[in-house]
């Protein structure tokens, strides 16, 4: 590639994903927590290294800026392998939001590949599941509010809302202790390792139906079986393929060395 245009675009990308956006990223100190699904036999705790996470999900306006710079990711241009036929279906055009996609609403109808490409262009990556779950365990004052029934009730109330309602704009839910918003109550979010969660309903009742299909420890069993919000999220993520897009599935980016 020639230096001129590449440099110009690098500069654009730097503005798009660099210093201007840094304030929108919440630093998350490292720590240890007990994920809802135990990572392995006799291992309950997981260490999460310090990283940074977008305070809010990526919006339609932000994703529009991305596809303007990366025409290969426009609606109608991305190949079927990387994004299914519903990719950005609520947008009016390849580089136009229209009435069905508010600029401040979280972008949805995006595939894992598209989300990953966006985060790479912004100098980041998708968070891992453990990073996401670690941050999502916090409420406004505590790093781990999961044992508080009120915290769980508030999250469950979102699940009770009928789907098909318009998505709220980002940044309207209370910031948690890290300054991160919208982890619950707005959308589902892609994570880097969505395909590895592999908990199945079968692990509660049956022997090991996946013995042949899965090498190693096979289907994992859930550690905290009454944490329905997280179990529902794991079940949803486990059911996805990387080119799937849905009306309620978006993403946010993480920054820092991948674990």
């Amino acid at each position, binding site marked *: *590639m*020639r230096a001129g*245009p*590449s440099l110009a*675009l*690098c500069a654009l*990308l730097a503005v798009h994903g660099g210093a201007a956006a840094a304030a929108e990223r919440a630093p998350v100190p490292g720590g240890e927590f007990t994920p809802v699904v135990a*990572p*392995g036999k006799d*291992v309950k705790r997981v260490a999460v290294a310090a990283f940074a996470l977008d305070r809010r999900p990526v919006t339609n306006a932000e994703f529009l800026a991305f596809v303007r*710079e*990366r025409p*290969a*990711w426009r609606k109608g241009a*991305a*190949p*079927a*392998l*990387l994004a299914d036929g519903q990719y950005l279906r609520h947008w009016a055009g390849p580089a136009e939001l229209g009435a069905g996609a508010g600029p401040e609403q979280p972008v949805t109808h995006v595939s*894992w*590949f598209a989300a*990953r*490409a*966006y*985060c*790479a*262009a912004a100098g980041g990556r998708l968070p891992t599941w453990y990073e996401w779950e670690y941050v999502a365990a916090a409420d406004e004052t505590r790093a781990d509010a999961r044992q508080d029934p009120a915290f769980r009730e508030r999250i469950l109330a979102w699940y009770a809302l009928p789907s098909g309602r318009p998505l709220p704009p980002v940044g309207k839910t209370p910031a948690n202790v890290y300054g991160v918003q919208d982890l619950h109550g707005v959308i589902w979010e892609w994570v*880097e*390792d969505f*395909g*590895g*969660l*592999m908990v199945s309903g079968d692990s509660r009742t049956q022997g090991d139906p996946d013995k*042949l*299909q*899965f*090498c*190693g*420890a*096979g289907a*994992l069993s859930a550690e905290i079986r009454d944490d329905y919000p997280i179990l529902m999220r794991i079940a949803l993520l*486990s059911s996805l*393929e*990387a080119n799937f897009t849905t009306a309620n599935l978006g993403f946010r980016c993480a920054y820092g060395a*991948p674990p």
Partner: protein
Amino acid sequence: MRIAMRPALALGVALAAALAGAAEPAHVHEHEHATPAPAPLPGGSLYQLGVALDAAGGSSLALDSLRGGPVVVTMFYSSCTTVCPMLTLAMQHIAAGLEPAERERVRFLMVSLDAARDTPARLAEFAAEHHLPQPPFLVAHAAAADVRTLAAALGIRYRQLPDGSFSHSSLITLLDRDGVATARTQVLAAEDPGFVASVRAQLR
């Protein structure tokens, strides 16, 4: 981060690099001023991913350099003692189900999930231990991000466990000459004549 600026130029390759959003394959630059662009890849082709491989023994190649013939691909890791030996055996069964002249036109690609420990040198030992002649076998390492990309495109689910082993789906996929998945099998314990027939059909 670079952008595919000139559409006329090796469109398929540049597009793949732009879409992958990660490191561009080295040959994008090598072929920049070279000959005409190859025919565009079908929308379902895995050769759009821009995945780079390090073959057992050490040589590097782009996944899309396998374009032109059928590829039987799976993902495994060399220290696996449970299902992976069966997966290796299943690959060997498929190869053995073909005539020698057919076999040499197919690549049997085994990409390790264990980017950290399965170095090309380790994989060369593995290939020797398991009698996997290269070619037609191609046992390969890929960088962690490329492992994730390839597994996602193949629909292979995996997770590293605290003891360093992996839990993963055991899936063998047939790619046609343009890298589109055309057949899959999870039959490990026995031969799968239907899958072998699918490979053979790609050679016609």
